[in-house]
């Protein structure tokens, strides 16, 4: 019986010929990622070593990545103290892949990992962040875990007792029509599967429309796979994966590119024709409350947010800058742009996009999570409405349970910034 992509990856990782859905495995970890919540991981890590007579030491200081992104620069003394504690730990343990609050190496974890070539096809990658699913876009088995689980990974070098997940195959053929992007596809899919429809499963993406997507778009799909409850999303690697890793991430060593078996067994197959997709909007307060844009058009927006680990990449900022160039953000609406990393920020600056955005009235903020999770900048007022390219619209997500968040693609965000109401990019241009 054939194996899915992730089953094949797991068999390789464990050095066995076959694995089946439901098998319980201990997996060696290739990369263990944390952000500011490393403060809790450190605490739990020290707990594991308590009374063992052994010095707390991480299993491999080169396989741990720590990225400050959730609250940068620190918004409070409490955060700054947590960050200091992590910095001291990083120095004491000799952790090499540390991305501090810096203009040369900083950014959001789910952008820093791909752009620095830390993720490879075939990797087992765990992160103390639910959107760790993002890295399946490069052919890794990548999933989110909690802080105590990460502490055990730091101590033992493996992730214990993982059940081999079943897989939903999503086949997307056809061409994306003008104004429709990877974000619209994944919003549509989350609406279709529902917020729990892929719980404990992998979403494996196939089809012409996926093959023709650049890595930036594939990252969007895998990033939001978790919004359907999936353990991970994955795009089996191909020439585009190789191109991205070589040309954009500077990876020089051998890549292990493999495909799922043709006779792989899937729990479910979902087919989507991209040609018929429209711009999609996820309405408050769940990500699966997805509607075609026509249903919510005209809705007044107080704050537009472009950025996050979902849509804060260079092509996203380019499309927003192009839409706003020479025009102005509508009066009564404010627009915040958060590039996903300082490398992207610098590229956007050099390409003139940052200038376009500022002249149009947008506020370009420093790379980081910003308002995405409502703890740092850009909080919403009571009864305010935001339209964001981020990935979650849960009640309270942008810092105020009395506000509403709608989710969309970058071009919808930019078009709506010009009008101050949710607007369809296919009608405006």
């Amino acid at each position, binding site marked *: 019986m054939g194996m899915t992509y992730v089953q094949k990856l797991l068999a390789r990782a464990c050095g066995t010929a076959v694995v089946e859905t439901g098998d319980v495995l201990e997996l060696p970890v290739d990369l263990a990622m944390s952000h500011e919540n490393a403060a809790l991981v450190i605490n739990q890590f020290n707990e*594991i070593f308590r009374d063992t007579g052994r010095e707390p030491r991480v299993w491999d200081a080169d396989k741990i990545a720590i990225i400050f992104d959730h609250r940068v620069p620190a918004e*409070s003394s409490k955060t700054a103290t*947590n960050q200091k504690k992590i910095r001291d730990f990083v120095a004491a343990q000799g952790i090499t892949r540390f991305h501090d609050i810096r203009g040369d190496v900083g950014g959001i974890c789910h952008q820093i990992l791909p752009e620095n070539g830390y993720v490879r096809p075939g990797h087992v990658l765990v992160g103390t962040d639910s959107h760790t699913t993002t890295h399946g876009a490069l052919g890794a088995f990548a999933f989110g875990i*909690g802080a105590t689980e990460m502490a055990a990974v730091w101590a033992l070098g493996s992730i214990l007792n993982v059940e081999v997940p079943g897989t939903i195959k999503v086949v997307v053929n056809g061409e994306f029509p003008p104004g429709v992007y990877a974000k619209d596809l994944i919003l549509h899919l989350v609406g279709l599967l529902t917020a*729990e429809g892929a719980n404990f499963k992998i979403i494996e993406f196939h089809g012409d429309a996926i093959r023709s997507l650049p890595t930036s778009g594939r990252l969007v799909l895998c990033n939001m796979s978790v919004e359907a409850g999936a353990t991970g999303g994955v795009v089996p690697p191909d020439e585009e994966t190789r191109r991205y890793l070589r040309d954009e991430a500077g990876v020089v060593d051998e890549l292990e590119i493999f495909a799922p078996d043709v006779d792989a067994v899937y729990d479910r197959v979902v087919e989507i024709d991209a040609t018929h997709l429209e711009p999609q909007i996820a309405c408050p307060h769940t990500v699966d409350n997805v509607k075609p844009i026509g249903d919510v058009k005209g809705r007044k927006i107080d704050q537009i947010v472009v950025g996050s680990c979902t849509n804060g990449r260079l092509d996203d900022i380019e499309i927003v800058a192009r839409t706003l160039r020479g025009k102005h953000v509508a009066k009564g609406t404010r627009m915040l742009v958060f590039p996903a990393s300082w490398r992207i920020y610098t590229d956007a600056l050099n390409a003139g996009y940052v200038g376009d955005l500022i002249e149009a009235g947008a506020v370009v903020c420093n790379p980081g999570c910003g308002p995405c999770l409502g703890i740092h900048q850009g909080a919403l007022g009571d009864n305010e409405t935001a339209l964001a390219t981020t990935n979650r619209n849960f009640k309270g997500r942008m810092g105020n*349970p009395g506000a509403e968040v709608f989710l969309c693609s970058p071009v919808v965000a930019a078009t709506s910034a010009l009008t101050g109401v949710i607007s369809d990019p296919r009608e405006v241009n």
Partner: protein
Amino acid sequence: MAKGKVVLKLDDDISTDIIYPGRFMATVLPTETPQFAFADNTEFNEALREKQFPAGSFIVAADNFGCGSSREQAASCIKGYDLIVVARNFARIFLQNSINVGLQMIICPDIEADEGDELEVRDNKVCNLTSGKSFAIEPLPKARQAIIDAGGLIPYARRLLLERAA
């Protein structure tokens, strides 16, 4: 086994943002997180902090409890009051975090209960003593049984660390 009242009844898709709002994420220690449990539900949060609910009281939810962010505070803040969570099903990361930190949770696909009902857990069933109905419990993932038996991931990992070093 456990017997107690339902002190909170919730719908589908309760996210970890609702259980433990993001703005309190700089507070990480399990000893400190309980004060912010369900912070945006001010009435319930106050009742928790005033210790109105004895250990072993129940939170009853529907589908997909604990979806969203991986923040472990969402499990540790409930564990701090020794409440038991009964839901039709749980989101993966929350389920594993709860097992790892020793929060008691029960998967009960058909559970029907209202706030104030008295529940008792026995013979692999949740019995609603108020309505007289009982509902079968689904076992927790078998992959995690060893961690549950060890009383959580910290003691389990500590044991492995020592065994492997030997």
